[in-house]
């Protein structure tokens, strides 16, 4: 125990030394800087108050106008009436019903615990498969290790999530297939295969549509602006900022061309030499933008707020090729 404590102290020392070395060699300028912040009050406080009030209003409305149900007393000896669980467990109930398609398997058991041969029937498969979503979710952070967090930047993950949510919804829908059959198909039973097809297939087109929608959003400016990682390569390359003594704000192509402002290099100061465009890793065509804004200023061209100056980049059909 004491040894482990000593070890912890030693580890922290060694680790701190390594951190310091790392900062010295790779990130001289970074160091431990205090971050300027935006206080919790009033921004978050206002947001939370509004949302809490709204949810409480919904809750009180339900409380006052929808009676909490109390069915007839339960009878353990003759439970005739068929009962559905609450809505948030319907997905599991749906899996139970879908599992009826899985063939029964006779598997060897572990004799002291189970009989010699165990029958893996629909109920078994349904119960076991109900655990699958939790396993997938548990493994998620260890599978999806990419850096991108925004859905627009990681459209596949977002589409997968939409598929999952849709599948849970359609499973829940399938769990009440009898009621749907009664209501809309007059107990013909032919609706079951149809409902099953919807359950399995409907999530795919929705997820695909979502994927392509997000892909199309990647072309937008907002996306690019958020991508600017302030490498200041544009500022370093620009001949104008070499001779003007403006310590801050620096030239920032994406910000300038998106917000229609000129913070580093003035509109008529720019040489339109294209050096910044050449170095920007996010491929903002700044010199074309400057020329455009000059034409607008002279009344030659009409101003179009939607016009974008991101140079098109071809990443291949699925976006798989490197930039």
């Amino acid at each position, binding site marked *: 125990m004491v040894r482990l404590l000593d070890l912890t102290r030693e580890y922290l020392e060694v680790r701190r030394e390594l951190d310091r070395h790392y900062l010295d060699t790779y990130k001289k300028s970074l160091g431990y800087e205090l971050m300027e912040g935006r206080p919790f009050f009033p921004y978050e406080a206002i947001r939370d108050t509004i949302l809490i009030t709204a949810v409480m209003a919904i809750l009180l409305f339900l409380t006052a106008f929808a009676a909490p149900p109390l069915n007839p007393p*339960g009878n353990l000896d003759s439970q005739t009436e068929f009962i559905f669980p609450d809505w948030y467990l319907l997905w599991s109930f749906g899996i139970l019903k879908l599992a009826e398609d899985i063939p029964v398997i006779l598997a060897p058991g572990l004799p002291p615990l189970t009989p010699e041969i165990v029958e893996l029937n629909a109920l078994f498969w349904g119960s076991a498969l109900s655990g699958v979503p939790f396993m997938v979710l548990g493994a998620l952070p260890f599978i999806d290790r990419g850096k991108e967090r925004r859905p627009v930047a990681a459209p596949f993950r977002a589409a997968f999530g939409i598929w999952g949510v849709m599948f849970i919804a359609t499973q829940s829908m399938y769990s009440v297939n009898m009621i749907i059959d009664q209501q809309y198909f007059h107990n013909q039973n032919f609706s079951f295969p149809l409902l099953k097809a919807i359950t399995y297939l409907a999530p795919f087109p929705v997820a695909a549509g979502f994927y392509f929608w997000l892909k199309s959003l990647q072309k937008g400016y907002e996306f690019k602006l958020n991508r600017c990682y302030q490498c200041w390569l544009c500022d370093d390359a620009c001949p104008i900022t070499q001779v003007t003594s403006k310590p801050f704000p620096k030239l920032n192509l994406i910000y300038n061309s998106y917000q229609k402002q000129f913070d580093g290099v003035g509109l008529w100061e720019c040489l339109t030499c294209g050096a910044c465009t050449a170095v920007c890793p996010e491929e903002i065509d700044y010199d074309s933008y400057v020329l455009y804004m000059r034409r607008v200023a002279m009344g030659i061209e009409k101003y179009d707020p939607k016009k974008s100056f991101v140079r098109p980049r071809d990443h291949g059909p699925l976006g798989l090729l490197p930039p």
Partner: protein
Amino acid sequence: MAAEALAASPAPGFFAQNPLVPVVLGLIIALSVVFLALVFTGIIGPKAKERLDRKRQAIRQLGDRKPLTLIEKTYLILFAWIDERLRLRHFSEQLALMPARDAYYTIHRQMPTSHSDKYNVKSVWAWYPFYCLGGLAFVVFLELVITGVVLGFYYIPSGVVKAAGAPSPAYESVGFIMTDVPFGYIMRSLHHWGTHVFVAIVFLHMMRVFFTGSYKNPRELNWIIGLILLQVTLFFGYSGYLLPWDTLAVGAATIGVNMATSLPGLGPIAANLVFGGVTLSPATVLRMYWFHIFILPAIGTVLMIVHMLIVWIQGVAEPH
């Protein structure tokens, strides 16, 4: 002769009956071999990472100073993993030697002004209200605790009936709460609808964490705790609606106990633990009551506090 051969040949085995099983097993084994080969050659896995990873380097250095036992090494790996995520070393620094001002800034954490803030990027702010859902879940949880405490004064956790089909004391006490207890109706109503709102909000909170990619390094631990909280939440709901012991309760309990016992081996043990037997009985009500008012609240409250403490230490992940 033929009859003898027939008698000697073994009965068709498990694999012959299920030909897909050896194929799947073979695939799994082949994939594992490829995976292990990649790890051993250092293309993926620990060797490939050691160059970049300061926590591995530190452990290596300690091992070079003095050989580590297996326990010590396991402990160090675990400690380093957690330290990487919860910044223990920064806090240990602050507690010991940092000036008070730095400690102040760490303890009174603020939202960082990121460039999305600075440049007024609207697509980030579209997500912004959803960051409130976790806190909202906790508020609704408090509401459920308060109303639940009131209901607890009157509820009788007994499913024993005088005759088949007669209402149990549990059922009657719920009826009593709704008709005779002052404000009892509204307390049960708040508790009932609060559950639905709670489950919905927890699910939406999980969706926001998923879609903003907030479960990624360094927040894996909190995601796992969240998953346990999700199961606690679902089981809270399930055990709760068994308590009135009406037809809905008995129907849902029947499905539950059938699902549990269908799993060979552990299933019946679990059913004995959770439902008080492999078939339903009045004991089921008492079991569900104890889960609902003691075990789940205890686990849930502790985990929620740890969950939010970790958020406080790590800060909230902004989608970048």
